């Protein structure tokens, strides 16, 4: 018997919905096997990982706080990838956005009031977008591959942040710790609940809904889909590939920058050398798991946020390295890519085996 893939004449809309479900199930099964392999009780570990974070209000809040930046960055990347523009430097744009927005509390600490917060949010978005313009410019002007440049810029941005918080922007009264002054008053996002929930999540949801509508009903969304899947047809429709690259980097950079600012003006409350547990890279997984669809990204963002909190849970309760979170996330991307094959292809079992070998030729 032989298993072959056969192209479907129409993409399967059923598999389009089922593929993420299948991928998550496979990840959970593989995860259980890994836990068993390292000698931990698999069911307990899985429970701690995926269910326990949803059993208390406190941890649900934590999940929502983590989901905010993932969704925000994820929707931007979803648009990029849909347009076949490969911005994988969101982590760097997040960093620069945080730096730009932090100018207000650090350099203009006396300026308080709602407009100061608005200025911070805008600066965060602008900072992320400006930083994303570097790979956009290199690609459109010189034809340099944006994957490599946007990724190199992540390292550069992180080193820049490191230098700023150890050098010029170090809190002079901070006992020489590599941290900026703590943000206060209107330099922090409004919070509620037990004091962790903040405005960032609302912003993320609104933007996801807007982008969902754009992708579905607006000509811009149509343009993104066409340019991404058939560049020559895009040119035939009068859509400019170059403008699309700029648009995608501007959008995803701005959203990543905004996410960075929201992190430092929200849960963290100041600048420090590490401001993100790899949100910019995890958002790549979020985008794919969400089928590059902004609404799907919201659900995917929540799921991956659960995995962050669950990862912390198993570390505390079972003493399993928090690296399992990254392994889970990597596996999830793997399985989602595998299952996506089934959208365009169907599996067929061939029983009639063609005889190979040339023995009967002579």
């Amino acid at each position, binding site marked *: 018997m032989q298993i072959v893939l056969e192209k479907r004449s129409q993409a399967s809309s059923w598999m389009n919905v089922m593929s993420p479900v299948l991928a998550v199930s496979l990840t959970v099964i593989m995860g259980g096997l890994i836990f068993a392999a390292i000698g931990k009780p698999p069911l307990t570990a899985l429970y701690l990982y995926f269910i326990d974070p949803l059993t208390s209000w406190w941890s649900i809040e934590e999940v929502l706080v983590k989901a905010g930046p993932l969704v925000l960055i994820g929707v931007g990347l979803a648009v990029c990838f849909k347009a076949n523009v490969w911005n994988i430097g969101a982590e760097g744009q997040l960093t620069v956005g945080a730096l730009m927005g932090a100018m207000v509390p650090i350099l203009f600490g006396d300026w308080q009031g709602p407009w100061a917060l608005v200025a911070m949010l805008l600066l965060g978005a602008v900072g992320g977008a400006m930083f994303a313009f570097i790979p956009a410019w*290199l690609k459109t002007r010189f*034809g340099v591959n944006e994957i*490599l440049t946007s990724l190199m810029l992540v390292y550069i941005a992180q080193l820049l942040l490191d230098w700023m918080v150890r050098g010029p922007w170090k809190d002079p009264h901070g006992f020489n710790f590599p941290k900026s002054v703590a943000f206060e008053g209107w330099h922090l996002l409004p919070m509620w609940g037990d004091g962790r929930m903040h405005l960032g999540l609302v912003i993320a949801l609104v933007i996801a809904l807007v982008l969902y509508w754009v992708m579905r009903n607006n000509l811009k969304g149509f343009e993104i889909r066409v340019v991404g899947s058939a560049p020559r047809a895009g040119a035939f429709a009068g859509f400019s590939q170059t403008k699309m690259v700029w648009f995608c980097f501007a959008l995803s950079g701005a959203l990543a920058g905004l996410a960075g600012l929201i992190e430092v003006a929200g849960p963290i409350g100041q600048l420090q050398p590490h401001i993100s547990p790899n949100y910019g890279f995890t958002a*790549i997984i979020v985008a794919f798991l969400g089928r590059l669809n902004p609404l799907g990204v919201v659900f995917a963002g929540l799921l991956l946020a659960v995995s962050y909190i669950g990862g912390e849970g198993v570390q505390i309760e079972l003493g399993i390295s928090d690296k399992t979170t990254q392994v889970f996330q990597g596996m999830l991307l793997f399985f989602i*890519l595998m299952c996506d094959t089934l959208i365009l292809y169907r599996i067929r079992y061939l029983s009639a085996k063609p005889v190979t070998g040339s023995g009967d030729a002579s």
Partner: protein
Amino acid sequence: MSAYEAIILTIITASTPLLLAAIGELVVERSGVLNLGIEGMMVMGAVCGFAAAHVSGSAWLGVIAAVMGGVAMSLLFALLTQTLITNQVATGLAITLLGLGLSGLIGSDFVGLPGVKLSNVSIPWLTELPYVGRLVFGQDPLVYVSIVLTAGVAYGLKYTRWGLIIRAVGQSHSSAHALGYRVIAVRYACIAFGGATSGLAGAYLSLVYTPQWIENMTAGRGWIALALGVFSTWLPGRLAAGAYLFGGVWILGLYAQAMGLGIPSQLLSSLPYVATILALVVISTNRRLSVINTPASLGQGFVPDR
């Protein structure tokens, strides 16, 4: 040992992992496949190599384990992109993310433990020659492996039938299929080769460069190796030159830090990344060269009609 010898030695040490990873990827890309997972395969090589060497006490067993770790990751990539025809860019990213996570998990028990260093070659008499002895006859074995591999790939691609088939498959998989070549099998083999050299590059980091396990110790070298492929326009000779140039930039930063010139260390640390971007820009200005050498079906999945 004179200062110039020391500098050249450190440059070679910094360049060799780049060269090892890049020469494998060059073969992969020549066969028409873009594997962005070098960083993940490399870091898996590093952790497998370190763990095996630490447990067994033998650096060579470490090297073998590293190669196997790299190959295993690359076969995963091959399974997805060649058999299941997934998007190569996304799958490469998945390999990198998975590799970084998995290596962290495996390595969590090995952080801070002493490693086993692969010892340098020592040939009586020759190695003691003044000026050139250490440089030519006293490197660690993987340096020679990297040079032999590069020369072998250069010769093989140009003059052997295997090389011709790899180039043909990378040029036009449909033509190669029509002539009866097994495109997917050829690509599997090339991807596995790329995984092996990436594993070697990882082994170099954890068994030679800094014989210990540090999380994410590849520090973007896999991505720089990818950029080297573009920079070299897929020619092995230029690739080697590029690798040593980048190794030089890396070392320059370290030396400048050590000398304490008052330049922020972060600025010097960012030099390799800045240099990579600049190199890509410079090479892109000669578009004809890139276009002619670029494998025409690079990054496209191949589905035979049955």
